[in-house]
């Protein structure tokens, strides 16, 4: 099963729906251990994505992701803007000229994780969105298909696991031990992104 241009657009539109629905919840999570704007940042960026993508023509998946990256970079701001922007850009670059089958998708997410680590000077276990992206990459390595159900499951478990972590990167790091017992907002929005992908794949 491959991811095509229409599905990629659907994916982002669905991700936006989730972000809009959960906007207040994401901000609330960020209020607890950050500055309370994560929902607002994501909603601003993804709204623009959902407004733009369906009205444009794209040659290939890589182009959809490139456009997405550009919008995210110039609309989201904060920490999550450059991070998601980098992730989408790396995925776009990695898929340039290819059909997106399971193997390609694994490489794309691999590049995204690398990009996130470089941009954020972070690694796994620091209570950031990397703690969702990296486990998703692991599961992609295990399967040959883009398996929506497995991706969703892995992302969900990984997101929940951020609750027990102590932040050492990002704004939440200032809280040290006090950051524990709270979900990481960026991990939760990353989960929505992968949940949206799973639903898109299910719908076909």
């Amino acid at each position: 099963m491959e991811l095509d241009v229409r599905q990629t657009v659907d994916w982002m539109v669905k991700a936006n729906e989730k972000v809009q629905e959960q906007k207040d919840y994401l901000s609330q999570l960020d209020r607890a251990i950050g500055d309370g704007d994560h929902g607002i940042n994501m909603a601003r960026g993804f709204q623009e994505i959902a407004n733009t993508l369906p009205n444009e023509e794209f040659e290939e998946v890589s182009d959809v992701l490139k456009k997405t990256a550009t919008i995210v970079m110039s609309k989201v701001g904060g920490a999550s803007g450059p991070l998601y922007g980098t992730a989408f850009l790396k995925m776009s670059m990695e898929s340039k000229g290819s059909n997106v089958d399971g193997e390609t998708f694994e490489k794309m997410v691999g590049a995204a994780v690398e990009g996130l680590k470089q941009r954020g000077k972070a690694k796994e276990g620091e209570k950031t969105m990397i703690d969702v992206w990296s486990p998703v990459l692991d599961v992609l390595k295990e399967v040959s298909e883009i398996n929506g159900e497995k991706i969703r499951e892995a992302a969900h478990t990984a997101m929940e696991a951020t609750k027990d972590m102590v932040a050492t990167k990002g704004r939440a790091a200032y809280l040290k031990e006090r950051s524990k017992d709270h979900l990481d907002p960026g991990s939760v929005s990353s989960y929505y992104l992968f949940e949206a992908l799973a639903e898109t794949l299910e719908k076909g």
Partner: protein
Amino acid sequence: MKKLINDPNQVVTEMLEGIVSAYPESMKRVEGTTCIVRKDAPVKDKVALVSGGGSGHEPAHAGFVGQGMLDAAVAGEVFTSPTPDQVLEGIKAVDGGEGVLLVIKNYTGDVMNFEMAAELAEAEGINVEKVVVNDDVAVEDSSFTTGRRGVAGTVFVHKLAGAKAEAGGSLLEVKEVAEKVIANVRSMGVALSPCIMPTSGEPGFELAEDEVEMGVGIHGEPGIEKKKLVTANEIAKELTEKVLPELELDRSVEVAVMVNGMGATPEMELYVVNRKIQAILSEKGVQVHETFIGEYMTSLEMAGCSLTVLKLDDELKELLDSRSKAPAFRK
């Protein structure tokens, strides 16, 4: 939420229009961007200073644009770093051929967005250097974390590096001054009441009627601890005791002091706090070269204040004393 605004989603744009229309002699807006630059930008053959960050800290950053201080201030959404494309616009608008220094406050978002802008600018052939301000002693440094936050001490970086640029310093000289200020400036804040983001309408954190947040960040981030409201003297003492030690002040040293209101603090209270701070400094034999009291780096309508102390030497003193036409820091 009770605010003198029109539309929460338009508040940054309208604020920028309101600033530029207040000070048309000093600054102008770069059309279609969130950048405010000096009226005479780009200033030929002068190193340019670009700063910025999330909005909600007014007069920071646009209030510090003007001869002797910043060349450009790039505004993000409320409490959200501006995006790389905006910062790039600011850099391009002020580069006068001698290069551009980016003054960044140490927040992950600001650092990443400004870094990306620097990469883009360099790709366009502009010489860019950057410094990261991390004056907030509330959050301890550690190799495992992102380091300290940048708060009101940033204003001194703007002023002194701006003065160096105005005096004809090279990009590296200006950067050196900025780094010297960063090495010698420490701050800490306290909040009595939270700030409310215009878009969410929700207070950024909660404080009971008898509580304060010691070491609060300028976005309302939690600090060291919530504690019972004590007297102004005790708070002044705690801030001073946290801020001073690392500066290793001895009797021969002079400092600049800033008692910064967080947004909703009556100025009367800033003076009461200052009284005790000055008493402690004088007891320790520290010479105060100049004191600044007022709003410099706010957090919307947060009540509370921060103390910033900058250790001076002859060079820094001269740069501090030199003229500035920035509306929020006239000298």
